[in-house]
């Protein structure tokens, strides 16, 4: 199909689709007045029956915990997928040579950048752990905290410490951690079956609202997810970093 024909077809369809969508959203309840039993029931149940202060985490890990298992598996598969799809280009020798070259160039990174990076990494890791563990109490949870922790790693790379990165993440260890996190979540789900009434039944003591050990297994799942997300995102990022190293990195190219 010629570019022109594609443009005509595309614009025509988008116009029609736009009209249909506007017609559809006109039928939604007025902005600010959501309808429905789920929105009202969910926070009350999560608070009263599970003592979880953060209703979003409660819904995510308890009421709709099975969805979160599925979502976690998607991340797991995507992390493995990035490894699989990029491994064909990753000969070990080539990466080591590229890393030596990068190390020499990294020595030219300004001291200010290195110092700032070193200073921020510690607090960032601490913040990540805090967000993961306090998922049931404050905005946060396994996913958010896991991404912060993985971001700490990227910060290390950006601040010029490529060699430190390689020592920190031997690839097989990260893969194993990723799998372990996913397995932990599944085991907790199955534990519900063994110790309780149903799969994903919350069998741990519920504690009092506002304390760290509240919500039954919500903090446990939050930590499992945090581990899995950190490992998964780190795996994906490190695969891309390897690709960059193999091709001379972004710094040498235009801009």
């Amino acid at each position, binding site marked *: 199909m010629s570019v022109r024909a594609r443009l005509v077809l595309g614009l025509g369809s988008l116009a029609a689709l736009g009209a249909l969508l506007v017609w559809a959203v006109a039928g939604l309840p007025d902005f600010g007045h*959501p309808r429905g039993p789920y929105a009202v029931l*969910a926070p009350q149940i999560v608070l009263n029956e599970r003592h979880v202060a953060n*209703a979003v985490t409660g819904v995510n890990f308890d009421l709709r915990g099975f969805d979160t298992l599925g979502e976690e598996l998607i991340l797991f598969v995507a992390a493995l997928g990035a490894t699989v799809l990029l491994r064909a280009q990753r000969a070990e020798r080539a990466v080591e040579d590229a890393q030596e070259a990068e190390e020499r160039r990294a020595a030219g990174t300004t001291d200010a950048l290195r110092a700032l990076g070193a200073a921020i990494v510690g607090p960032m890791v601490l913040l990540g752990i805090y967000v993961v563990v306090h998922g049931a109490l404050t905005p946060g949870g396994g996913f958010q905290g896991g991404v912060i922790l993985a971001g700490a790693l990227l910060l290390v790379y950006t601040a010029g410490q490529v060699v430190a990165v390689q020592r920190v993440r031997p690839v097989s260890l990260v893969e194993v951690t990723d799998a372990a996190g996913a397995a932990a979540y599944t085991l907790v789900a199955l534990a519900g079956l063994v110790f309780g009434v149903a799969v994903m039944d919350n069998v741990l003591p519920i504690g009092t609202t506002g304390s760290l050990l509240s919500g039954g297994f919500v903090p446990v799942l939050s930590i499992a997810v945090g581990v899995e997300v950190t490992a998964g995102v780190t795996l994906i990022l490190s695969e891309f970093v390897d690709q960059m190293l193999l091709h001379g990195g972004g710094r040498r190219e235009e801009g």
Partner: protein
Amino acid sequence: MLAYLVAVWLLLIGLYGVITSRHLVHLVLCLGVMQASTYVLLLAIGWRIDAQAPIYVDIPPRARVVDPVVQALTLTDVVVEATVVAVLLALSVQAHKRFGTCDPDALGALRG
């Protein structure tokens, strides 16, 4: 209503970007814009006027809160879509290496 229209607009402009893209990374980011439209739509649906965030640490247990279910759905959605973007970008990196170009219109070995 404006919030819903913003979501519709994002969806349409993202899809336009995907259709007319000439660079694979640009195409993936346009998919990202389409994904953003779903987040906006979900969150706009859950917004409640004169309500607070659904964190019961310092508000009374009977306070009006916005819909937490929609926020949980958005959280799930963000993770799902981010991982799809990761896989697509990995494929784009490989494409650049194989074909020497990132132009989606250069793909043409599989035809007919």
